[in-house]
């Protein structure tokens, strides 16, 4: 027999046949496929954007806490020398990143700079301001924001308990407010992302159900020819995975584009708050994870659709 032209060897293996069939069906109805992929892409884009941003959002709280300092006013009878020693000693503690000592003279200078009360101070004669130590807490950026706030407040309380300390000043209320606003935002967006993921799963499931109907004849004929269940189902499962893979890629691209739109105004806002916070761009790993997750959902959608038995799998004649 002369050589015949029948396409690739691979297309005639069980697996190759299944993949070839899937790809062929998708290409055959290219418009419908494209629309489905866009639907999947837009559906999964929002959860993806949120996920890209969520790491930055946790960072926002952590950094805000990290940039906060505790001002510790010492008793009036503590000398500048003693205060400087104290600052040095505290610096050695694990919970403390850095300390700055503000001597009584410096405190007075600062005070004068900031107020117009020169005359009143002069009237007092002596310097009424105590020595102070500014304490910068050590922050583990991997801890959740709540925990950080609690720890910093714990540190403040510990400092307050020292006999040499007169008063501790710290303002974490705004961080708490930010924290709860972000928590609310997180819950809302998570719910939204959950619904959208479910929608995506349903879209894939429905697409696969249609696919099953379209392939009915092929499935019937293959059954007659002795195809096993796995042979019948393999192209369907590959189709689900393929929709997931391509839909996931569309979602990842859309999310990255959307994210880059959000980044500029978000960074500007952060700058206005003098924060060093910046949205970080999605990494290649995150990009691929989105695709992997949507592919898995595609697989899941296909498998779930296959659970319902197809009526009349075999022609009746």
């Amino acid at each position, binding site marked *: *027999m002369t050589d*015949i*032209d*029948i396409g690739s*060897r691979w297309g*005639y*293996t*069980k697996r190759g*046949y299944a993949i070839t069939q899937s790809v*062929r069906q998708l290409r055959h109805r290219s418009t419908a496929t494209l629309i489905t992929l866009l639907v999947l892409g837009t559906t999964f884009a929002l959860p993806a954007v949120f996920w890209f941003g969520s790491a930055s959002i946790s960072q926002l709280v952590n950094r805000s806490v990290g940039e906060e300092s505790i001002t510790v006013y010492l008793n009036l009878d503590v000398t500048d020398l003693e205060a400087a020693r104290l600052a040095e000693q505290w610096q050695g503690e694990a919970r403390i990143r850095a300390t700055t000592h503000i001597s009584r003279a410096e405190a007075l200078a600062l005070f004068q700079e900031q107020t117009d009360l020169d005359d009143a101070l002069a009237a007092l004669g002596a310097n009424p301001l105590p020595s102070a130590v500014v304490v910068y807490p050590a922050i583990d950026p991997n801890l959740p924001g709540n925990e950080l706030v609690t720890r910093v407040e714990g540190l403040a309380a510990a400092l307050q308990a020292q006999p040499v300390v007169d008063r501790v000043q710290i303002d974490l209320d705004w961080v708490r407010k930010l924290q709860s606003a972000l928590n609310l935002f997180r819950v809302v967006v998570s719910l939204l992302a959950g619904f959208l993921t479910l929608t995506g799963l349903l879209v894939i499931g429905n697409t696969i159900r249609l696919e099953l109907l379209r392939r009915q*004849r*092929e499935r*019937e*004929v*293959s*059954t*007659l*020819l*002795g*195809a*096993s*269940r796995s*042979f019948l189902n393999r192209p369907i499962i590959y189709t689900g995975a393929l929709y997931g893979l391509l839909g996931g890629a569309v979602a990842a691209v859309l999310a990255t584009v959307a994210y880059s739109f959000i980044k500029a105004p978000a960074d500007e806002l952060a700058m206005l708050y003098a924060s060093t916070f910046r949205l970080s761009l999605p990494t290649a790993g995150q990009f691929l994870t989105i695709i992997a997750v949507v592919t898995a959902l595609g697989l899941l959608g296909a498998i779930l659709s296959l659970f319902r038995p197809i009526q009349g799998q*075999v*022609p*009746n*004649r």
Partner: protein
Amino acid sequence: MISFEHVSLAYQTGRFALEDVSFQLKPASFTFLTGHSGAGKSSLLRLIARLEKPTSGEIRVGDIAYSQLKPRQEPGLRRQMGIVFQDNQLLYDRSVFDNVALPLIIGGFRFSEIKTRAMAALERVGLADRYADDPINLSGGEQQRVGIARAVVAKPRILLADEPTGNLDADISEEIMRLLLQFNNSGVSVLFATHDRELLQNYRFPQLVLDGGRITNLGRSPAPARQTAHESVSP
């Protein structure tokens, strides 16, 4: 080779398509299955192909008792059979070659084997030169021959033909009959459902005659067979 023991089949409607059917076919036999429309011919073939399960009775093919068959063994059983239909059940989204190759892909054959076997099967039905065509561009008779090539390509032990000559003219019926005979001569058991009078007259093979779901003859054709086929039916 194939035996039915008191087999009945009732469809979900409650109607019995087959009632208390018993017969035996010897290996490598050629048997006609006849009877008027609705007599139960297709139902009987569907039972053999395990596309339907009997309501009662036992079916055996070789040493396989159908009552002992697990669902996952059914595909393997079907792979031992070739089935040809009146409506040829070709897939029109692929070439003639790919239609014939499908049972081999399902059977997990190697590529070189698939190529040789499929082309050999097409050769035998005289369509090797049409391997790359779309089946839709073939005539009814040619399509039926592709269906036969597909049915025999994996070398089944049994060939079930359900009115394969149904809507083809007499010349083509003859041609298809001769093809089936060829396969029978190479050792394949053929069970051929038909009510084509001409064929039944020209080829005096044993007949299973169904009427209202029951076998009405004793399995002998009325006159000696023209072909050299063995007496193959015993009630």
